[in-house]
């Protein structure tokens, strides 16, 4: 077997080890908070798997490092050592160190560094020894002879345990020439014989030069399951123990190692998804159903259609539609992974930041099993990190401030994920001080974002923090004040087709709500006609569509148009203007106003009319053409023509920029 064939499992190993490290970390943190002893087993198991796999998949440095950590854990697990804060601390550092080693493994750089070396020594010192014990085992009995007598009597239960004398004696035959004499006297009377028990025994004469260790090696698995005596008949020489151990040296050639690394790097680039067997089985079933339906429909190639056959045909088409839909859902499901992998980074981060700031924070995770599209999952981490940092830094108060406000010393930070309609909603909420309206207004006035806070609703004030370059902290800490503002958070989320909103109550806390599409690959949309062209408006953005009278829309100074919708004046965006479509309807009362919402702002999209609802498979415009402002992608309609997908958030930004200009 080629080493390269195994490289695929090397990547899997790295991925599962990183998951194992996450598990170790979260379990260590739970232990720190007084979790139960089962956690120690969980941590041990993770370390144990990493150690075993690392040695198998060619990372001896990781294996040896983990061995030290595992030994320490083993003492805790077996009750020889009590778990304390110091051990949790050093284990957490070991987790970080291993993450670094795996990162270097993926990059193909040397695995050990100074940190790893010193931590490894620290772990070894905790175990009461300076260096790991060597594997040299002195064996007094090692010798060699020309002829041996082996007496072998299996215990009654040996056969049921799967060890077969046939196999053992055949193996001995590979060492030297055998004369096998059975011992039959212990076999009970036929009627009383329990067929699965062994009552035979053998005396085996072995001729030919052989080492005791080789013979004993044949019986290694049956120690304790048989009586065994190995006697030398003609001793040749005493062999020193060190020479007796022949090290198996599977030294991979340089070329092999290079191939492995190349493979590893290649697989690191194209990201992969691990799919449960259940999901794959479900897919296979569905494909099977499709094939059956297809062959049933195939029978309609020949022969005419009468009423009876028509009914069958309709039934077949209905089946085809159902299976196609189910198949689509299942395939999309493959890209869905639980948000737990993102949530799991936060316990450690919250612990570190709150300690640094002298705050007491309890982190609550809700809905960790909520599944998200893998792409969304990979990109939602950074915005969430920012929101969590902000919440601890600016939202939650120090214990004395909390006491002064009549709250408990410990603040609560909640990360919650759930399905809501066709969306995933992720909330980052805290029970801290809430937004400081006066400070925000003052800052916004200073920045020239607004003239004054007079008449602004609380929500409108809260919206100000999403403006570019906005920062309110009286003292910029090294945690949040890193030049990344809430505007970047909003833009990152918008790039995922989602929105961020905030609800805040002074003195009670804040809730940031991220709303995300279930998947980026397919959207539900309404097809709108504008002139000769078709546009898809994402269903999630649509509030309502209304037919307006011409006089309902008013022009305002500066060239914009407004219309009244539920007591609010909304700007009009004429799609034919934005995208330059010819032959489109111009008169307000002949077309349709689609009220949409993006980034917390409502606008009216003026289109000729709506054609229907459909699911659109999103094709990247960037990959096939170039990025176009106000368009998030394209899709192919049933008739083969192309429709562009409207990017509502982008249009809203475009609109506000025009207004500002």
């Amino acid at each position, binding site marked *: 077997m080629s080493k390269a064939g195994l490289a695929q499992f090397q990547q899997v190993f790295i991925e599962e080890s990183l998951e194992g490290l996450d598990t170790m970390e979260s379990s260590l943190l739970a232990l720190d908070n007084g979790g139960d002893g089962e956690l120690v087993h969980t941590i041990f198991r993770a370390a144990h798997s990493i150690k075993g796999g690392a040695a198998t998949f060619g990372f001896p440095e990781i294996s040896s490092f983990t061995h030290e950590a595992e030994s320490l854990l083993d003492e805790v697990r077996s009750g020889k050592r009590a778990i304390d804060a110091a051990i949790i601390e050093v284990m957490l550092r070991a987790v970080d160190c291993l993450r670094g080693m795996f990162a270097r493994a993926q990059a193909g750089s040397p695995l050990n560094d100074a940190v790893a070396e010193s931590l490894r020594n620290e772990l070894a010192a905790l175990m009461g020894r300076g260096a790991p014990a060597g594997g040299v085992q002195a064996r007094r009995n090692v010798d060699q002879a020309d002829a041996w007598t082996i007496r072998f009597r299996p215990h009654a239960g040996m*056969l*049921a345990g799967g060890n*077969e*004398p*046939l196999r053992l*004696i*055949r193996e001995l*035959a590979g060492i030297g020439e055998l004369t*096998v*004499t*059975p011992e*039959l006297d212990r*076999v*009970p*009377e*036929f*009627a009383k*014989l329990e*067929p*699965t*028990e*062994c*009552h*035979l025994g*053998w005396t085996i004469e072995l001729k030919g030069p052989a080492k005791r260790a080789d013979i004993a090696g044949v019986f290694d698995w049956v120690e304790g399951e048989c009586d065994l005596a190995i006697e030398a008949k003609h001793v040749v020489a005493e062999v020193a123990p060190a020479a007796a151990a022949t090290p198996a040296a599977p030294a991979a050639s340089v070329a092999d190692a290079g191939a492995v690394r190349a493979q590893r790097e290649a697989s690191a680039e194209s990201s992969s998804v691990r799919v449960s067997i259940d999901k794959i089985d479900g897919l296979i079933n569905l494909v099977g159903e499709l094939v059956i339906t297809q062959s049933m429909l195939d029978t309609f190639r020949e022969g005419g259609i009468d009423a009876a056959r028509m009914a069958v045909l309709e039934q077949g088409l209905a089946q085809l539609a159902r299976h196609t839909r189910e198949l689509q859902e299942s395939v999309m499901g493959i890209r869905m992974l639980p948000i737990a992998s993102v949530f799991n980074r936060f316990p450690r981060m919250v612990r570190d930041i709150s300690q640094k700031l002298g705050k007491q924070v309890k982190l609550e995770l809700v809905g960790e099993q909520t599944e998200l599209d893998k792409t969304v999952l990979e990109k939602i981490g950074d915005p969430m990190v920012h929101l969590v940092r902000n919440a601890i830094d600016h939202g939650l108060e120090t214990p004395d401030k909390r006491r002064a406000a009549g709250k408990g010393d410990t603040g609560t930070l909640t990360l919650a994920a759930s399905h809501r309609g066709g969306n995933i909603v992720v909330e980052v909420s805290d029970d801290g001080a809430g937004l400081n309206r006066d400070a925000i207004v003052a800052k916004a006035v200073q920045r020239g974002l607004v003239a004054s806070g007079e008449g602004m609703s609380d929500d409108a004030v809260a919206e100000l923090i999403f403006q570019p370059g906005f920062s309110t902290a009286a003292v910029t800490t090294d945690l949040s004040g890193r030049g990344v503002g809430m505007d970047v958070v909003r833009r990152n989320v918008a790039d995922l087709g989602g929105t961020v909103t905030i609800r805040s109550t002074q003195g009670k806390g804040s809730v940031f709500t991220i709303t995300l599409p279930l998947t980026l690959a397919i959207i539900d949309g309404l097809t709108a006609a504008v002139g000769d062209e078709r546009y898809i408006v994402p269903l999630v953005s649509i509030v309502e569509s209304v037919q307006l009278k011409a006089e309902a829309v008013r022009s305002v100074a500066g060239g914009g148009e407004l219309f009244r919708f539920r007591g609010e004046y909304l700007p009009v965006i004429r799609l034919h203007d934005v995208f330059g479509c010819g032959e489109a309807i111009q008169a307000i009362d002949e077309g349709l106003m689609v009220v949409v919402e993006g980034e917390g702002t409502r606008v009216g999209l003026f289109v000729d009319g709506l054609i229907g609802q459909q699911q659109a498979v999103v094709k990247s415009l960037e990959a096939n053409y170039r990025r176009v402002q106000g368009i998030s992608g394209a899709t192919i309609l049933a008739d083969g023509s192309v429709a562009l997908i409207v990017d509502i958030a982008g249009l809203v930004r475009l609109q506000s920029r025009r207004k500002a200009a």
Partner: protein
Amino acid sequence: MGSKSNPQRKAGEARVIALPADFRLTELADVKAGLLQALEAASVEIDGAGVERVDTAALQLLLAFRRAASARGLPASWSGVSETMRDAAGVLGLTQALELPATMPA
């Protein structure tokens, strides 16, 4: 070779026991039951021609059976022995004790 199985034959007649293809530990309870009945027959023929897999426990069972048969004066002969069986008996040094024929009967 005789017929493969005759489970309903009355005691006092000749009996043929056909050993199963998988003649190993987990199958032995059934084989033992058949052999136990055969002890009541006038003579027994053991057909091991179809044995594809065999283990120590199986040969031990046959050994105990032959001993029981000879203690009762029941003639027990082989009507067929597969290569697999012959080889296994050889490895375990049981060829003689099982009185396996030197070559297959014609």
